[in-house]
């Protein structure tokens, strides 16, 4: 067990490595001298994160599903031909601007941008991305007046489910943290958005960061936390600027509650709550065994309430207008929901619709299908693929789970019939192989095995390489420590089930 001081020093190492320009023998030595953390620990931790493990300047090109469909490979080849070194990276949460690219300073560059959209101003919507910004913090004041118990009661009434992907009722976590004997508690906001197809948190950070901050402040007030940590992915340059501006105003409004911003350093797995905590503590982002849950022992081993950006963003309106009001906004489940839509649609973007909207309704908002749709991925890479026979299915937590898929982060990607489904599966598997943390064998070996076998199938058209894929997929789901490994085979499994023709001898 590290001492208090050693722990605080450890928490600094990733930021220091970033200031040093990345992991080198020399930078590790300097960070060691400054913090006292053993050199090997700094090296091993730094080498986990792709934004700092290879010092040097280069363009980063997304190779997520939507970006691949939009010609990311070609763009990469073109830029390389012009003498610009390129690195292929996992989803940059810019799928509506596919193929997404970051320049050497992590600034967004758009090459073939389509027209994109968000739901226009509608005061009846809790998040209302297109609406005006309210910096009065009146909901926070109201929540203070109401007191913790009443706020949790309203939250319970609202039926708000965690918007990060698991769909766990939000109020449970609040009650669980409140029930802990330990008085030092933390609120963490998970802004490490990186699930391929997902870019809703990005829009909140850009357009309504104040709503999110107010929601977090209400949570901190209710559970008795003095500090809020926002873990925002390191590739979010514009988003960070927007957030920091909002924090300048928030600081005074929510004092003495403090807001801290921690930058991600390039690891999708840190969107997993316990891996995120490890990253905040200056360690490799490897998920912890649960139990204990973060609400019992989270950041610094203290009770921790962690919410996704969108979950926090819903809270002020719920406190203002009541749980019943929010609940009724939903179609099949409670509330409104930000759906991200990209791929073969005319106006990709983020649309706030009643929870339970169908694909057709969502694509209507996004200007219609582009070409002849054959499949969609309803909730990020982890949700696999569904055929168009599901176009009327309510996109909610329960209905999608029953269909063997998941709503996840509601990162919906539409694939038209120009896409080879086996190829699409390969792109998703490349993502999981690269982003597996490597801690447990089922995921570490399984993600690589499946990607290689599908690769072989795509190249040779022979089905033999896929003979044992089902066994491996089964073990990945049964044996992995965290959700990444459990769902990493979903793209293959679902595509084999719904698109058997794409996996025949060719």
């Amino acid at each position, binding site marked *: 067990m590290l001492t208090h001081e050693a722990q605080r020093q450890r928490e600094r190492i990733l930021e220091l490595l970033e200031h040093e320009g990345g992991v*080198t*023998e020399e930078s*590790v*030595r300097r960070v*060691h001298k400054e913090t006292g953390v*053993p*050199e*090997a*620990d*700094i*090296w*091993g*931790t730094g*080498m*986990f994160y792709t934004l700092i*493990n290879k010092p040097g300047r280069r363009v980063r090109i997304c190779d997520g599903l939507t970006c691949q469909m939009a010609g990311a490979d070609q763009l990469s080849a073109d830029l390389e031909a012009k003498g610009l070194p390129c690195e292929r990276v996992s989803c940059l949460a810019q799928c509506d601007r596919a193929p997404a690219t970051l320049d050497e300073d992590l600034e967004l560059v758009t090459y073939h941008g389509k027209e994109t959209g968000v739901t226009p101003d509608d005061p009846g919507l809790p998040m209302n991305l297109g609406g005006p910004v309210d910096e009065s913090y009146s909901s926070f004041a109201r929540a203070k007046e109401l007191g913790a118990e009443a706020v949790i009661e309203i939250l319970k009434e609202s039926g708000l489910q965690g918007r990060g992907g698991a769909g766990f009722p939000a109020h449970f976590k609040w009650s669980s943290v409140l029930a802990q004997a330990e008085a030092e508690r933390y609120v963490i906001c998970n802004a490490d958005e990186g699930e391929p197809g997902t870019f809703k948190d990005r829009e909140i950070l850009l357009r309504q960061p104040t709503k999110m901050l107010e929601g977090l402040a209400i949570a901190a007030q209710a559970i008795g936390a003095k500090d809020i940590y926002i873990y925002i992915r390191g590739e979010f340059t514009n988003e960070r600027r927007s957030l920091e501006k909002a924090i300048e105003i928030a600081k005074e409004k929510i004092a003495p509650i403090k807001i801290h911003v921690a930058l991600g350093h390039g*690891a999708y797995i840190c969107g997993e709550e316990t891996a995120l905590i490890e990253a905040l503590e200056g360690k*490799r982002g490897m998920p912890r*065994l649960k139990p204990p849950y973060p609400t019992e022992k989270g950041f610094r081993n203290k009770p921790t309430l962690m919410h996704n950006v969108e979950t926090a963003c819903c809270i002020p309106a719920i406190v203002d207008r009541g749980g019943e009001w929010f609940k009724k906004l939903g179609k099949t489940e409670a509330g409104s929901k930000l759906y991200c839509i990209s791929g073969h649609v005319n106006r990709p973007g983020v649309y706030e619709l009643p929870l339970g909207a169908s694909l057709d309704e969502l694509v209507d908002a996004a200007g219609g299908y582009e070409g002849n749709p054959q499949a969609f991925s309803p909730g990020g890479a982890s949700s696999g693929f569904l055929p168009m026979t599901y176009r009327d299915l309510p996109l909610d937590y329960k209905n999608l789970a029953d269909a063997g898929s998941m709503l996840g982060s509601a990162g919906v990607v539409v694939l038209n019939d120009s896409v080879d489904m086996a190829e699409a599966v390969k792109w998703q598997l490349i993502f999981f*192989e*690269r*982003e*597996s*943390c*490597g*801690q*447990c*064998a*089922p995921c*570490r*070996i*399984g*993600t*690589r*095995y499946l990607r*290689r*076998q599908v690769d072989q199938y795509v190249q040779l058209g022979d089905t033999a*390489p896929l003979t*044992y894929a089902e*066994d*491996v997929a*089964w*073990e990945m789901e*049964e*044996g*992995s*420590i965290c959700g990444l490994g459990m769902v990493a085979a979903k793209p293959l499994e679902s595509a084999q089930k719904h698109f058997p023709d794409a996996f025949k001898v060719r």
Partner: protein
Amino acid sequence: MIKSNSFTVEINGQTYSADAGETVYEVAQRNGVEIPTLCHDPRLDPAGACRVCLVEVEGQRRLQPGCAWKVDADMKIQTESDRISRHRQVLYSMYMSDHRTDEEGGLPEETGNVNQLRELCATIDPIPLEKVEAPRAARPGDDNPYIEFDPELCILCARCTRYCDEVEAVNAITLAERGSETTIATAGQRSLIDTSCELCGGCIDTCPTGALIEKKAPKLMPLETKTTRTTCNFCGVGCQMDLHTHNNRLVKITSPAPGETLNDGNLCVKGRFAYDFVHHEDRLTEPLIRREDGQLHPATWDEAIKVASEGMNRVKAKYGSDALGFVSSSRCTIEENYLMQKLSRAAFGTNNIHQCAAT
């Protein structure tokens, strides 16, 4: 209501007593119920990383790691079932696809040390998965004299890195990279000699697959080795060690298993690796006395001690007691050191007594 600290649990239908805080693995092991594991070492915090020990716990949808799962009153646990059998079969097969094997499809290779993965794989009918050829980096330039890392036999259970951190508090090695590239590394991939490593070799001892081995021990152990338990005499701690001999030659030294002797599975660099003197041609194996011809001549201990005491008494008679000085060794026990100062003070009458570790 205060919960009792002792209760019973059910494993495979049998009732066993257990204490709060114990893990499923601990209760099972104490009662002779075998749960296989690779990443568990009783000296380390459970990692639950190898996933070999997964069991069924009633009320839990997912399989849970026996090494980390804490028992509770009346908990019902299954360590054998169709589901667990399939899990082991596929998991071990996956490990084989990520491991150097005897031949294509053969068992995990065994080199200088036992490969527990090989033993586990022998218990299943493996699925013939193609190799995944994970790009795990080795440390080719590591010229330390004792410890060798073979990434092809590594299962990333992190016992070595956790041992180095949690037991030795040395933190010379770390998990580095990520996903299938994850490997065991040093800062900058430097030689262990150029790190905080003390070359204790505990990482070798805890490695379950032989990915870490002694550089100078034979790579393939002769089948016929004799093991002799002895006490290390490099210092007074009294660590127990097992000498492995073949044809009367010492080929390796290991520690007894953790929990068995006072050194709890640990040895230091001297105990584990400094045994080259045993068969060295310059080694003194009997007392030698330099006679008047200026040459060293073999003698008995009685003769040698007699010559030494006569010599010392001569000095004392001629120059007085304080012309003598006694230096004891840190290889001695405290009792031996006590006797040395007694020899100095009581027998020869001088306080000129020192011990080499005293400054």
